């Protein structure tokens, strides 16, 4: 009898510890921030999303207010349609706000920064952000720089 109770106590302790560890892993180590938070979706079109990926943060004034939910290519207009999920608490974003794809640090991941507009009407679920700025692609930046260099060069040659 005594032995059975020790076994039960040990097993109970073990199961309790295991479940506590499981609880810790699921709640404390994961980005639970947007897990069960009420959100609303808006879309934005970009000519080029660069290295933007799903679950990338959406920030406003540097504060994360949501995440990228879906990235798709519009087969007709051949541009990228990005669906953003934004926390319900931030439902005062002016509808003429600007969304731009930015890079965190030199080699960091891409994220979407939203710059506030001036409209009195706020973005609603399903709305589209019309003013967007695509990602800066390093290669095109360099080629533009080289082109302008060579144009300067030829201008000087003509003089």
């Amino acid at each position, binding site marked *: 009898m005594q032995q059975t109770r020790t*076994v*039960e106590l*040990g*097993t109970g*302790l*073990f*199961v309790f*510890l*295991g*479940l*506590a*560890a*499981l609880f*810790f*892993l*699921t709640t*404390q*180590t*994961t*980005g*639970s*921030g947007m*897990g069960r938070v009420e959100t609303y979706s808006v879309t934005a079109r970009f000519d080029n999303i660069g290295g933007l990926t799903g*679950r990338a*943060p959406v920030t406003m004034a540097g504060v994360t207010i949501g995440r990228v939910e879906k990235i798709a290519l519009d087969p007709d207009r051949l541009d990228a349609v990005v669906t953003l999920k934004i926390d319900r608490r931030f439902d005062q974003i002016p509808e003429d706000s600007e969304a731009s794809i930015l890079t965190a640090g030199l080699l960091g991941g891409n994220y979407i920064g939203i710059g506030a507009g001036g409209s009195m009407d706020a973005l609603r679920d399903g709305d589209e952000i019309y003013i967007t700025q695509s990602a800066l692609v390093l290669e095109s930046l360099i080629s533009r720089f080289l082109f302008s260099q060579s144009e300067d060069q030829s201008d000087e040659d003509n003089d």
Partner: protein
Amino acid sequence: MGLLGELGATLASFLRTLGSMAIFLGRLIAYTPAGLMRFRLVVHQVHNTGALSLVIIMLSGFFVGMVLALQGFDLLARFNSENVLGGATALALIKELGPVITALLFAGRAGTALASEIGLMKATDQLSAMEMMAVDPMRRVVLPRFLGGIIAMPLLVAVFTAIGIFGAWTIGVALMGVDPGVFWSQMQSLVSMDDVREGIFKSVVFGVTASLVAVYEGYTAWPTAEGVGRATTRTVVITAVAVLILDYMITAALL
């Protein structure tokens, strides 16, 4: 010809083992509903395989977490990105090291005990005695041990991983001076619920694998001292290889 014949014989015996193990698993699954009714037996085995493995699991988890943080810090410091230490160690522990190392330790600590216990019961004719009393040793001896292992494994993996993260915290934050806030916030932004789910899925698969191999090897052991010894060795070897192969396949499938 001799070499080729030997190769063929090895392949045939491998396939035969695989097949009889699959049939064994099928029988165990068929008995499971009835086995769960006698839950006291299963609880006893959860104690044997799980609770008694707790100390070695916690100790190993803590040291694995610490060495991971130490190596990770050294590597990340070269790229000036010590800040992601928390996320990197947590991801490694949750997705890979937690399930795999726990399964290997489980094979060594609990699997060998199961195999030798059942093997010895067979060698000392206890299983035949049960059969004579119309008690099916599959249901009375093998099934509770199998189910106990399956229940214990995910819990052990969770404990291992959680302790490992604290081990990483000890080295990273307390010793190396990574900012504690950054350590946790980087972890939370890097680790997603899918990663935790992958870890849990792996731990369940490894639990079934390790328990199945242990009870199968014990049950099919030659009823001699040598046979029981061989069964224990085979348990560890087969579990380790199977877990590592399964780990690769699950990771490749989920990535």
